[in-house]
């Protein structure tokens, strides 16, 4: 079902939704937000795109294998940043104790590894939400 009003409104809204999601993820250490909320906003914008421009079209939506790779990369990046603390001689996920530069509080480049952690959480949450929705919503081809 294609609706011209839904398509035009989605085309207007999706860039702002994704910009807002990126803002929530990238500034999660200074202002309210973080990886989970921002990843959900980005995932809902991509779901809106899929809903407006056709859920049955395989070329338009993020395929399951790509989403699975992004999801695994997010989890692996989180664990890798955590293990970097161990390799630098401190505990798992330790930030200042492992020698990461903390920067000036309030600036964007502050908080050590927290920015990288929120980015990886955002990638994982966004791809997980998209995978959940497409798995539930797509027509069952295997069962036929």
């Amino acid at each position, binding site marked *: 079902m294609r609706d011209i009003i839904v398509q035009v409104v989605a085309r207007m809204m999706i860039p702002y939704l994704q910009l807002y999601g990126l803002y*929530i993820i990238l500034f999660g250490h200074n202002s*309210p*937000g*973080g990886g*989970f*909320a921002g990843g*959900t*906003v980005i*995932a*809902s914008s991509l*779901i809106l795109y899929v*809903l407006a421009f056709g859920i049955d079209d395989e070329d338009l939506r993020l395929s399951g294998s790509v989403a699975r790779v992004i999801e695994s990369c997010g989890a692996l990046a989180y664990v890798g940043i955590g293990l970097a603390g161990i390799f630098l001689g401190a505990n798992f996920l330790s930030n200042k104790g492992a020698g990461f530069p903390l920067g000036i509080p309030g600036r964007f480049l502050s908080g050590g590894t927290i920015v990288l952690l929120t980015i990886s959480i955002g990638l994982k949450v966004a791809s997980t*939400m998209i995978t*959940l*929705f497409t798995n*539930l*919503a797509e027509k069952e081809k295997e069962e036929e």
Partner: protein
Amino acid sequence: MTLVHFLLLLFLIVCAIFVGRTRDLISAAIVFSAYSLTMALLWQQLASPDVAITEAAIGGGVTTLLLFAAISRTRRME
């Protein structure tokens, strides 16, 4: 506790009771989305904007879509 808080809480309770009592699952999903948005406003009023953003994104967006997808795979009336 101002009048706006009282009205939001009243709307929240009405939404929750309606979601529990209705037989139509699609209207239950839509009213649950309204419940989540009211809850997000209340979280913001309780000075926790982080939870408010998450509640608006999860409750108002993704949960409603997942419920609709689940309803489309099963039947509409309870």
